[in-house]
């Protein structure tokens, strides 16, 4: 136990168990569906989760700070549509510039959310529930509800979903999926090895203490929303590439899947704990379900019901099991020992 306690934290156990759950799910589907273990199944799953994953990373940062961003679906829609339209008019634009545009636009929208939450002091659920509607409405009005269609897009973009970077054990790794993995890695390292990253955890873990030691809480919350926005923007670009045809409805309802991924991934809905990797695992879990269920004879309509149950289980396990684990870990408590270099005072010890 003590070895366990030293080297693995409850949170990591949480993630390992999710990984286990995914494997179980895959084995289950594999046993139920013949021809399940094919590169296409793999391709389906990874390319379907690319979008959710990228958005979930941003969502994780926001949730860590005890907030939530429900407007991501609308941000994805807006950026996908805007970038699509621009590329429609100027097909010459370089891929890099297109991505930059998407990210920039996304973060710009994120600024609105961030400012309202951080300085407007409006609870994030209210702000983003509102902007969820506002951004969508603006998109419909400003675009006159026109549609971006594949034919107007440059070929490199239309073909991007088919572009495989390399293949692993005969499984092709699509560029878009690779992109999402890179995003996850970058942000995971940032969250665990940058002081900045740790501060997101700090302010979510105990805002009062954070304020007392002078952490710039408002600025950090603001930053979290901007990052969430910019990643949603990036996801918007991926959406554009993947679906090609972008109606003003694009991305509607995505926020639910993303929040689901984050919660299932073990990010505490009330801030302070959870990891980016966990969020990705959550996304993979959801993607696997989504892409596998309809291949069973039961209809794909079971997906949402199961997803709802998953979220509940995730939260419940956090509340009940994780508390137990933490209590267990917490026992590793203080002992009074001889102060370094000084003779022993008294070796009293608290059980």
């Amino acid at each position: 136990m003590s070895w366990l306690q030293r080297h693995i934290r409850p949170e990591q156990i949480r993630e390992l168990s999710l990984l286990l759950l995914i494997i179980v799910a895959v084995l289950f589907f594999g046993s139920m569906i013949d021809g399940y273990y094919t590169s296409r199944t793999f391709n389906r799953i990874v390319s379907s989760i690319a979008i959710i994953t990228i958005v979930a990373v941003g969502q994780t940062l926001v949730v860590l700070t005890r907030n939530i961003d429900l407007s991501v679906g609308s941000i994805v829609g807006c950026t996908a549509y805007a970038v699509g339209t621009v590329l429609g008019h100027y097909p010459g634009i370089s891929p890099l510039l297109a991505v930059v545009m998407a990210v920039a636009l996304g973060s710009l929208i994120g600024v609105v959310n961030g400012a309202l939450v951080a300085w407007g002091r409006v609870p994030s659920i209210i702000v983003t529930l509102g902007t969820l509607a506002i951004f969508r409405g603006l998109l419909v009005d400003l675009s006159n509800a026109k549609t971006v269609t594949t034919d107007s897009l440059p070929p490199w973009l239309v073909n991007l979903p088919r572009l495989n970077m390399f293949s692993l054990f005969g499984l092709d790794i699509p560029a878009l999926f690779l992109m999402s993995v890179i995003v996850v890695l970058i942000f995971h390292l940032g969250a665990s090895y940058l002081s900045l990253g740790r501060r997101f955890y700090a302010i979510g873990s105990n805002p009062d203490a954070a304020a007392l030691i002078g952490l710039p809480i408002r600025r950090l919350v603001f930053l979290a929303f901007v990052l969430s926005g910019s990643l949603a923007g990036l996801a918007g670009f991926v959406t554009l590439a993947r679906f090609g045809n972008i109606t003003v409805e694009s991305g509607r309802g995505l926020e639910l899947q993303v929040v689901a991924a984050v919660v299932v991934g073990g990010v505490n809905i009330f801030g302070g704990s959870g990891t980016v990797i966990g969020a990705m695992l959550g996304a993979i879990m959801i993607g696997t379900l989504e892409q596998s269920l309809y291949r069973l004879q039961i209809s794909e309509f079971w997906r949402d019901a199961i997803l709802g149950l998953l979220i509940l289980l995730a939260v419940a396990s956090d509340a009940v099991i994780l508390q137990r684990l933490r209590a267990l870990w917490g026992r590793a408590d203080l002992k009074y020992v001889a102060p370094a270099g000084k003779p022993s005072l008294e070796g009293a010890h608290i059980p």
Partner: protein
Amino acid sequence: MTEPNAAFKSTIAPTGVAATSERRSVLETRGIAKQFDATQALDDISLSLYPGEVHALLGENGAGKSTLIKIITGVVQPDRGEILLAGDRVSLRSAADAQLAGIAAIYQEPLLFPDLTVAENIFVSHQNRGAVVRWARMYQEAEAILAELGVAIDVRSPARGLTLAAQQSVEIAKAISLNVRVLIMDEPTASLSAHEVAQLFKLVRRLRDNGVSILFVSHRIEEVFEIADKVTVFRDGRLISTRPKSETSPQRSIADMVGREMGLLKPRPLSPRGDQLLSVRGLGRDGAFEDVSFDLHRGEVLGFGGLIGAGRTDVGLALFGIEPATAGTITLNGKEVTIRSPREGMDLGIAYVSEDRRQLGLSLPMSISANITLPMLHQYLDRFGLIRHDKEQATAEAFRKRLSIRTSSVDLAVAKLSGGNQQKVMLSKWLNTRPSVLILDEPTRGIDVGAKAEVHAIIAELAAEGIGIILISSDLPEVLAMSDRVLVMREGRAMAIFERKDADQETVMTAAMGQSSAVAGEVAA
């Protein structure tokens, strides 16, 4: 806050500053003043802290101690006056500024980050450790610092789940890591066991010997005189006196605090013990307390003595059904009963007045009358099940007179009342349930002297009416003065029951702290 005795202002001028003036002060405040709304929280405070000394700060609640701390730590900005660090003026605009200046504070409830590791908690406030976290190095340094303090905590484990004592060790380690020059400790011992206090003081002395200047705030005067080199007393936002320990005494400090000689509390006249009301045998709850047995008679005040965390409150909670007992028997009026919820406790005529007025005792935004009638709401309904406000008002008014609650109207939100009056509302609320057994948990904590006396009078009155009262209090003189008998608890066990005549501070304290020094405060459990 205003005090009833504000009339007699002490004429004692600040003294003793000269005694140490040859040494250079590390921190000095000059003429600090701060006003909140109408209240003059601080007025012309000039105070000097010197390296290598423990400087105690005494004063009743609202005397201005915490405001001064907030100002020194940069949390609050003063209206007037200046702060000097090692002789030169500084302006502390934020807590971060104060930290950079080498000033750190430790509060009664340590402010740690439960989700961050112990090591991170120690170094989190270092603004200058670079953009990248070097985990290995951080763990080493954290372990080193803790070892230096003579405590061992797994620096890799999250702070969540550490005991208060452990958390305070972490706070101190944090302070050391910032190599502070001034360490402010605001009631650090309030919720520590005797043993933990002893350990804490060891740390404090070690810091002092290393030349740190410590500002020590506490309500436990005996502790103050154990640890402090110098004692400063505040009252009504003004600095009344600053004296070396050698030149003062607990009595004298108290006199300064309250502005009048406060002799021992006037003992409540012993009442003839009525017939038996409540009989508890071998009561226990896993992890909290065990094998507690006692009898309570009509008109008797049974004091619960002991240190905070000795399990006295847990016994109260068990009797009231909030944290039901898992072992033992409760016999009420000769009938054995089981109490599994507050509702059941109330129905049996038991009332528990919580120690935490603001969080557990009252619903602050709601009106006085609504608070008073809450437990008995079902008695205030008409035949359609709707609430009869007139009847509520009547009840509230009755209690307002009986306990002389000072308020313009009983429709006022409780939040608007002073601590003492809130306490009275809470008493009214439970007296309204016509209890035969009344459990009072720290009924006078954090209320001013005047209100305290009133509450004592009420307790005496209720006992005279034949109510059996269990008085849980960490204020030893209070327990001794009010109780017919005193039950002393330690580590969740009933150590002894003293008749008033046999009970005095020493006997009770020895019983409460036990002999062996290996006493473990079971705050941990």
